[in-house]
């Protein structure tokens, strides 16, 4: 790979590769080129290879494509490209064919011969693999017609599922490294910062702190050596957008970090990410090597006097390391305990040198802002939260996946339109955002417009972007207990309120879900929450009580039912649940008696059965097996 040593050379390279990319041009994600392609492959098959899609068969689908194309003699006419996440995770493995932009879902290696012989060879779409609209039952051919993608706006995920992350050339073809070249040759550091400030790009890690302000403080901080850190320690359970970007479009982060380095006067960047993401780490390291070989990272980037190098540091499984000062300690090879502030990270960060620390998604937004301008960015989203946000939509929802939506969209639009509604036709109970630091939005509040400030105002938070949909079967006390259990495990133990207080809160929640809670317990929960919020050192501790506080606020009657009536309205807390056979409905088929693991159901054949409440372990196996809805959970 030859080095690119000037801005002109970079642009030449872009034109060269952009022609091939034109095949993947769609109205939603326009590829940037001026020339039409000819003489290159006639079709591109895009294949998601991120963690979810590759789980089932590994590289078997790809291998089958390659061998089938050869068998049909069209291997030169069709390119098969391994990409990052399409976001449509519930429907994996996803395969797209360009230029038609046809999406196939739930593809297995057994389907590949048909795709090759019908579609790739004879242009006949394989209808049985198309996405079927769950409401209208219509077959949908192209991705942009699928409801899940309508209403999405892709900025940070612009290249995910569109380019081969292993190819720096495809990234360059998509205007890649153009923003870096402009920031080196056409802009002063102050102009870069001013532009990021003007765009009001706020931290996508959850805090929402303006990135431009961080860059400015670090630029002003006194010191020869400065660092840029990318926070890729995505610890929020149920969120995977950072991994999707690091795996699906690693260069967008590398480029943005170099831009930040140029803006603040740093020559070194560190990406701190999770050891649990081996595929993303491998991809990142490969991308760094490519960028160095191309002369887009390392010494004298693009022939200028600006030098910037990036390395990857792995965490070792600690949620608290997502907190910026804990991350700094961990990146120094120490226990990931938070530091006192001040001094601010901008003044004394990594190795106590001035450091700008931003999240993966924040960085990914930077290159488009530099190219398209602050006004463009501000035209998307809300006034105080411009741009988009990525959410990992999961839980009791029809379409689980990764979505990028403009700020200001309502939760209702996300759940009903993009997510296709609540699973199994159940009733929506709440939507949880912000993970263990966030809170719940009750079903009657889902018309709220999502942005940093609106979510804060109702006691939830944006967080890194986990969005968990809960239905009528979910017990809110149990959900709060789940998060508290997480926090107790992950509290680093430095401050007493967090270390001891969260443990006490968990004990109370366990008592309540076991059926031994009292009304005084609810008061005690509130008292503990207040103390922990006010006296913990870091963000983890300060926000730890949020799931309890918000569920107490919006679902107090559910807590009351647990402590006063000793009932779990959702039927999720087994200690407070009992199973009963309705004699009128039971036909005596004996299926329940056979499935019961403790043999506590008795009765004659064709006679109503009875459950021995003393012996019942409340596993619920009988309910699931009864075809006559004769067993009730109470």
């Amino acid at each position: 790979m030859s080095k690119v040593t000037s801005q002109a050379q970079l642009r030449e390279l872009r034109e060269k590769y952009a022609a091939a990319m034109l095949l993947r041009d769609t109205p939603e994600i326009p590829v940037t080129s001026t020339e039409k392609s000819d003489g290159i492959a006639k079709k591109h098959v895009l294949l998601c290879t991120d963690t979810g899609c590759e789980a089932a068969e590994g590289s078997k689908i790809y291998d089958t494509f390659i061998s089938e194309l050869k068998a049909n003699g069209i291997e030169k006419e069709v390119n098969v490209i391994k990409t990052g996440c399409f976001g449509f995770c519930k429907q994996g493995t996803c395969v797209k064919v360009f230029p038609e932009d046809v999406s196939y879902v739930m593809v297995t290696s057994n389907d590949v011969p048909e795709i090759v012989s019908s579609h790739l060879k004879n242009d006949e779409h394989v209808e049985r693999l198309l996405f079927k609209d769950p409401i209208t039952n219509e077959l949908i051919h192209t991705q942009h017609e699928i409801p899940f993608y309508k209403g999405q706006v892709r900025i940070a995920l612009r290249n995910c599922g569109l380019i081969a992350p292993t190819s720096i050339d495809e990234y360059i073809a998509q205007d890649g490294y153009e923003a870096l070249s402009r920031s080196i040759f056409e802009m002063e550091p102050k102009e870069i910062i001013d532009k990021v400030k003007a765009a009001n790009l706020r931290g996508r890690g959850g805090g929402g702190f303006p990135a431009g302000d961080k860059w400015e403080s670090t630029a002003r901080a006194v010191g020869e050596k400065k660092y840029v850190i990318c926070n890729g320690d995505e610890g929020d359970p149920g969120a995977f957008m950072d991994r999707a970007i690091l795996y699906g479009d690693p260069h967008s982060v590398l480029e943005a970090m170099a831009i930040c380095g140029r803006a603040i006067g740093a020559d070194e960047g560190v990406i701190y990410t999770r050891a649990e993401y081996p595929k993303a780490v491998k991809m990142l390291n490969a991308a760094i090597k490519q960028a160095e070989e191309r002369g887009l990272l390392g010494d004298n980037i693009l022939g200028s006097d600006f030098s910037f190098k990036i390395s990857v540091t792995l965490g070792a499984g600690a949620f608290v390391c997502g907190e910026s000062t804990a991350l700094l300690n961990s990146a120094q090879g120490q226990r990931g305990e938070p530091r006192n502030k001040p001094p601010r990270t901008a003044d004394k960060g990594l190795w106590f040198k001035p450091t700008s620390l931003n999240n993966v998604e924040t960085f990914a937004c930077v290159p488009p802002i530099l190219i398209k301008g602050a006004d463009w960015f501000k035209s998307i989203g809300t006034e105080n939260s411009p741009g988009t946000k990525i959410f990992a939509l999961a839980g009791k929802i029809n379409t689980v996946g990764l979505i990028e939506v403009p700020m200001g969209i309502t939760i209702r639009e996300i759940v009903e339109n993009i997510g296709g509604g609540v699973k199994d036709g159940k009733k929506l109970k709440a939507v949880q955002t912000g993970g263990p630091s966030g809170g719940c939005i009750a079903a009657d509040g889902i018309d709220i417009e999502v942005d940093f400030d609106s979510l804060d105002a109702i006691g939830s938070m944006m967080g890194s972007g986990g969005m968990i949909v809960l239905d009528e079967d979910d017990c809110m006390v149990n959900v709060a207990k789940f998060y508290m259990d997480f926090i107790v495990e992950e509290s680093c133990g430095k401050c007493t309120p967090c270390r001891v207080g969260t443990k006490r809160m968990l004990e109370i929640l366990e008592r309540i879900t076991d059926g031994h809670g009292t009304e005084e317990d609810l008061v005690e929960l509130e008292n503990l929450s207040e103390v922990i919020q006010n006296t913990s050192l870091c963000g983890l501790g300060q926000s730890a009580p949020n799931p309890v506080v918000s569920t107490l606020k919006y679902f107090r009657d559910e807590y009351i039912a647990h402590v006063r009536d000793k009932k779990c309205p959702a039927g999720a807390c087994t200690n407070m649940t009992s199973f009963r056979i309705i004699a009128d409905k039971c036909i005596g088929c004996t299926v329940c008696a056979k499935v019961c693991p403790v043999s506590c159901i008795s009765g004659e054949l064709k006679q109503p059965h009875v459950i021995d409440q003393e012996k019942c372990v409340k596993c619920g196996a009988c309910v699931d097996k009864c075809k006559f809805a004769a067993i009730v959970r109470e």
Partner: protein
Amino acid sequence: MTENTCQDHGQLKEIDEFIDQLAKQGSLDGKLIAILHKAQEIVGYLPDEVQAHIARRLSMPPAKVNGVVTFYSYFSTVPRGKYVVNICMGTACFVLGADKILEEFSKQLGIEPGQTTPDHMFTLNALRCVGACGLAPLAVVNEKLYGKITIDDVKKIIEEYKEGGVGNE
């Protein structure tokens, strides 16, 4: 993996080689976690001898190394089974019944989460989040992912890895 806590010299030598290689690239400051990752990859876990050895090489008190080892959930100070069964307990998996799946694995294997079977075949763990929420609930055995699993699948998955099974190494 060796069960003998007295590490064979080959493994310590491999760790030393890694440290030497890092030292050539620059300062060893801040490299402790990276070294521990490598050591665990080589030995399978981080027994006291290995921790003490690393402490000597980095000229730091063993207590400091131990402090780091015990801080992070990724590091283990006890030997783990040939197959590490991780059940994702991320929120998406949790609301779709991952706790019941974990319970079933626990029952089938006869061990609590965090423990290893006496024959050193299986270790059972709860994992935070793999980020494959579309496949919830899911289990990871070594590197292999099993998605959308039901209680009934648990036995089948374990069978795959039992003596004579077809589990991938």
